[in-house]
């Protein structure tokens, strides 16, 4: 199409295209791209909190140090775990819930849809306070119920034990992430052409076969969209960590996002924190590109 455009039309498309983009670009370039550029620049300096010293250019020193910083590597590893665990679990869980509820009566369907959406709208700060109480080592509801059921005989310090802490954070993240995917899947499933499903059943396909052969391909675009939003969401778990564990115990819940903040405002090493930010940004950009490629191919 591009090749067939006359120069006049091309100029017209350029001008009108950028005019429509302008308002959005102002914000995007001003408050995302520009700070990101500053972030890249600062990552090559030793910028810090001290007003008595000038920032000096130190080349790749921050990046070299990062490579040897066990806490950063742990944080990167935890960040990857959170994404790798939460994204598929959210997708599978919400698909299961959606397929269990999408043929229910409107009222019931609406009830479940709202219920699963509630943690999203309740707000992370409020939800976190309740979960902190539920996980409490001494009188939390999980220990109370598990002990009552005889599953455990000694209280588990959920957030204080490196074995469980990250899992606990991921669980909260899951409850605040599945709301939207469920809504999406319910709609996608109800839009599946039912005559195709019936035809398959006539051909003797059982439920599972009908699902994979007929429904799955039709809800594929929804799945890809959910993959993208869930990935975005799983990088936004800062408030949970900040309010519950501060990255502990023993860095078990340290994520790159929190470590950047910690490095900047507890250790006052701005340059070093920005270097982490650059690494994280590259990592995320690559991930987004892969996901988008997948969506595109489909």
């Amino acid at each position: 199409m591009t090749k067939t455009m006359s120069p006049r039309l091309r100029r017209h498309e350029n001008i009108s295209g950028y005019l429509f983009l302008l308002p959005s670009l102002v914000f995007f370039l001003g408050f995302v791209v520009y700070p990101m550029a500053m972030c890249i620049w600062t990552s090559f300096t030793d910028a810090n909190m001290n007003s008595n010293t000038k920032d000096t250019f130190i080349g790749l020193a921050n990046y070299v140090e990062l490579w040897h910083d066990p806490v950063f590597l742990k944080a990167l590893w935890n960040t990857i775990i959170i994404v790798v665990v939460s994204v598929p679990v959210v997708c599978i869980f919400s698909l299961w819930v959606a397929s269990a509820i999408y043929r229910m009566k409107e009222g019931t369907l609406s009830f479940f849809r709202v219920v699963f959406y509630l943690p999203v709208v309740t707000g992370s700060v409020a939800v976190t306070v309740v979960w902190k109480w539920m996980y409490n080592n001494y009188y939390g509801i999980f220990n109370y119920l598990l002990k009552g059921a005889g599953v455990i005989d000694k209280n588990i310090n959920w957030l204080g034990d490196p074995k469980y802490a990250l899992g606990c954070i991921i669980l909260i993240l899951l409850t605040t992430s599945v709301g939207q995917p469920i809504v999406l899947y319910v709609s996608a499933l109800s839009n599946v052409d039912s005559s195709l499903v019936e035809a398959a059943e006539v051909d003797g396909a059982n439920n599972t076969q009908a699902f994979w052969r007929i429904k799955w391909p039709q809800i594929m675009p929804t799945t890809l969209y959910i993959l993208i939003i869930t990935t975005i969401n799983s990088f936004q778990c800062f408030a949970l960590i900040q309010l519950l564990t501060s990255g502990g115990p023993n860095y078990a819940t340290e994520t790159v996002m929190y470590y950047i903040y910690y490095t900047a405002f507890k250790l006052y090493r701005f340059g070093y924190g920005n270097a982490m930010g650059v690494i994280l940004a590259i990592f995320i950009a690559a991930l987004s590109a892969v996901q988008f490629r997948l969506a595109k191919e489909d």
Partner: protein
Amino acid sequence: MKKILALVMALCMIFALAACGQQAAPAPAANDAPAAEAPAAEAPAGATEISLWTYPIGKWGDEATVKALTDAFTAETGIAVKVEYLTYADGDDKVNTAITAKQAPDLVMEGPERLVSNWGANGYMVDISDLFDDTDKSEINAAALAACFAPNGAAYEYPLVMTAHCMGINYNAFVEAGADQYINKDTHTWTTEQFFQAVQALYDHFGGTVGAVYCTGQGGDQGTRALVNNLYGGTFTNDEHTAYTWDDPLNIKALKALYDQDGIDFDASIVGGDEIANFYNGIFKMAFCWNIAQQLNPNSADTGAGLTLNGDEIVFMAFPSEDGTAKLQGGIWGFGIFDNGDPARIDAAKQFIKYMCDSEHTVDAVRASNFFAARSAAEGTDLSGVWADNEIMNEYTKLMPMLGDYYQVTTNWAGARAAWWNMLQQVGGSDGSEAAISAAVADFCGQANNG
């Protein structure tokens, strides 16, 4: 639908205007103190408004109390004070972001560990050594005075109040478990041996966690530091306050003893505030994050001061040490001035400090804090009797002579505090062997020294 939308839009425009108007104001949000406006208008040229950020130091975190104090100041000087209230959970972050944005407040109220060794050392505070004349220097407690001065001779804080941090115990529980025999309720002291015997007795009687070494947080570290250092006489820094010395074998011995003791748990899921909450609701029988202000304030269920939720008596205690005379961690609180480059506002802030810390009004400022005055007298007013009518405060004066070295001004204090928490977490998560504890201590102490 469209009407609603139009209404929402209209409302938004109004608030947009409000927000913009605010932005256009000369000083950062300069028009926020309605009560202070009238006198401010009459005031002579110069700074008519300064901002003050306070941490919750006794009632200095309570709007009504602080407003009464600042209103009185405004009435006398014509300088309006806009107060913001910080918390220990995110107060440091707020000050740090404000500094990064070059929007730091004019005045901040906290201790030398932040004002002198952090913001002062990083070059953000105004040297206020000109506020200390020879009379002041003789009146102010020597330890508090020393802590307010940086190694370069500049003063970054003017002290108002001070205290010695202590422990709290649930006395009823001690009696019930027969552990009261191990404490001296009169002198509020005990030895290391008595402490462990008491914990054991409480553990044998109640089971569960008697006391928790909380391993996370922003503040509250003074409790765990004092506990570990006092048990066997270890030190936290050297005498010159130039290096951290937690790798002292006596500290490692203390950490191991705590780790091995039934009923003492290293808990990485709680901060000092959670410890207090669990102490109040009777789960913990002792609290390491205690001080006199908490002893005086009503508990979280408003059932009275010095009591747990179900009415058990709380007794404050010195930290245990081998000979029973602890070196308590001092808390010193006062004011410092951020250098915002405006001489008029700096001058107004100095007037504020003079008014609160060194005048006949100091009595009220001290009373608001629930701590002791950091000086014997201010401009002819004797301050030793501020709390004369208060029985608990009188009782507490028994602990004040045990005030130890105020070492929280050592270089890299903020980094050292972060490393201290991480060290406790690693010790708590280790197998408790001496090798593991030594390794954790050496590692993080090294980080504190190199940061």
